[in-house]
């Protein structure tokens, strides 16, 4: 019980990051039925670009308040990622919208590899540290501690998710997105500019990814050109867990996966009598993914789909 609360806090923080990235996957899948493999790399780009800005500012103007520097990093990273998402959709996915299923999937893998390696060529293979510009305070709650960074991530993530829900439920664009996700054909017959909706979906998802990327690098204190791969895979698992195509599902799935990983890593030593250690942490997401897809492919909140003959 001693580590329970701590793991809970850690899990929720991690989970909210997963949720933000999972939202991007689920939105694209809902409309295009495509797994955007490159999404994890966009998160990575968000982290790398923002770190480049933050690192530069921290060096050049050490007197500036940390929040401002962070804001500047975000202000650059978000548009860059949005542009990337737009570019990828336009160049790599749109031409293949009517190709056999395998094609966009393979292209997505290709784009993912390209982004990874471009990052590697630009920033090198070493870990890039996140400068200590943020308040480092920790607070004690019932025997567990929570840091300022963790609080910030939680708060920001919740705000963003609320904002997204507002956009999807209350705005014209949101309505168009929901219609397109239901049926592209009918939506376009109803006057929806499907191409614009799809582009917007990628843009919004990429923006979320950028923020998530910054959060991850702030939380772990570093960024690396390879960080997107695993993160993306886990976020995708989260989206599937919650029910792919379902926004609430992505959020729920993200939080759950964060908790599963956190508790799993914390307790696995005890559970397996020391045979497996916490370095098996990454495996949890995969097991969750496989279990969900095999036993309940529609996820927790998704609807059952029957293939009609």
């Amino acid at each position, binding site marked *: 019980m001693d580590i329970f609360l701590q793991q809970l806090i850690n899990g929720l923080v991690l989970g909210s990051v997963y949720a933000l990235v999972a939202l991007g996957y689920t939105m694209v899948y809902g409309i295009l039925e495509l797994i955007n493999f490159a999404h994890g790399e966009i998160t990575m780009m968000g982290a790398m670009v923002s770190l480049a800005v933050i690192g530069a500012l921290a060096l050049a103007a050490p007197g500036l308040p940390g929040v401002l520097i962070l804001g500047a990093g975000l202000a650059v990273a978000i548009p860059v990622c949005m542009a990337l998402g737009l570019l990828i959709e336009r160049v790599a996915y749109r031409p293949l919208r009517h190709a*056999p299923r395998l094609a966009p999937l393979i292209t997505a893998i290709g784009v993912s590899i390209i982004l990874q390696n471009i990052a590697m060529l630009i920033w090198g293979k070493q870990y890039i540290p996140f400068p200590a510009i943020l308040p480092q305070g920790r607070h004690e709650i019932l025997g567990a501690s929570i840091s300022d960074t963790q609080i910030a991530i939680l708060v920001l993530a919740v705000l963003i998710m609320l904002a997204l829900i507002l956009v999807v439920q209350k705005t014209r664009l949101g309505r168009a997105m929901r219609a397109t996700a239901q049926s592209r054909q009918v939506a376009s017959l109803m006057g929806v500019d499907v191409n614009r909706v799809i582009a917007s979906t990628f843009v919004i998802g990429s923006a979320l990814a950028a923020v998530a990327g910054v959060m991850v690098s702030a939380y772990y204190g570093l960024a690396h050109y390879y960080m997107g791969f695993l993160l993306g895979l886990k976020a995708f698992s989260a989206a599937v867990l919650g029910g792919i195509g379902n926004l609430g599902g992505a959020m729920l799935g993200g939080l759950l996966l964060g908790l599963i990983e956190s508790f799993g890593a914390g307790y696995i030593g005890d559970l397996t009598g020391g045979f497996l250690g916490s370095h098996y942490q990454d495996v949890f997401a995969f097991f969750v993914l496989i279990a969900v897809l*095999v036993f309940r*492919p529609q996820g927790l909140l998704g609807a059952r789909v029957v*293939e009609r003959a």
Partner: protein
Amino acid sequence: MSSVPSLNKAQPRWLVFGLLALGLALLPFLVDAGLGRSWVRLLDLALLYVMLALGLNIVVGYAGLLDLGYVAFYALGAYVYAWLASPHFGLHLPFWVILPLGAMLAGMFGVLLGTPTLRLRGDYLAIVTLGFGEIIRIFLNNLNAPVNITNGPQGINLIDPVRLGSFSLSQPHEVFGYTFTGVHLTYYLFLLLTLAVIFISMRLENSRIGRAWVAIREDEIAAAATGINTRNLKLLAFAMGATFGGLAGGLFASFQGFISPESFNLMESIMILCMIVLGGMGHIPGVIFGALLLTLLPEVLRYTGDWQRNLFGQIYVDPADLRMLLFGLALVAVMLYRPAGMIPSARRRQEFADAKG
């Protein structure tokens, strides 16, 4: 009128085969003389990848099951070989026992990993198999405590080379005054096995089983309604692909003498997929071409390092780093502009052409 029978049709065919056989037999020597010993080694590696690509071709190309974790079978074959022919467990069984054993175990693993995926559709299948591949790599990396099974990230080395009695493939041998080095002999062994794999693939492609696989790929529901036991046939595809993968893995272990989990990561799976996508999915000549291209071309890239040095005085871009970037670009480019591959089968070209129009 002359009654000399016209052999014109049969002759060129046999001539071509004869020349090809001769060429293949002499190849290692030609390469050695022209490009150096390291290129012969590369040739051996290329043959391994041809085997792997053909194996994956059965799963992806014929049956249409996108397996992104194929490297797991490669790894299994390699580790089985390492466990049974190295100081790690102190076992030194002969290669003609371990190779088939490793291949068979890999095949069984193929059935094991394939079973949960049977009801999954395209993208989900890809992700789940990717997950399996990663899980296996993580386990290989960590199963060194409490019991040391895989020796973790350090891997297993001092693996026995292929040996027949006192005749070892790692030593040079003299025949008729000609020196056959280890890599030359390995070439012939690999070539033989690769030809066997090609042969088996060809026979399967044009058989009841091959047609059933393609039917499943085309329309699984219609295939089932036409009497095909889709479950068994999908598992068979996984098993056959895995068997070839395991065979290649065992050969790899004996060839390199050292294996570690690093060699069996996701990028390997993706690379092998690249080979069949670029070459021509489901089409044996295309797959062979893709495998050869993607193994040999990166080596050519190494020379760009020298060119850069000569032109600019220093290396701006390490060619090794460029390798994966170019792979990614090639994948995207091929999917956009030549999705049926460089040497597509006639029908595949048709399929993609129609989708575009």
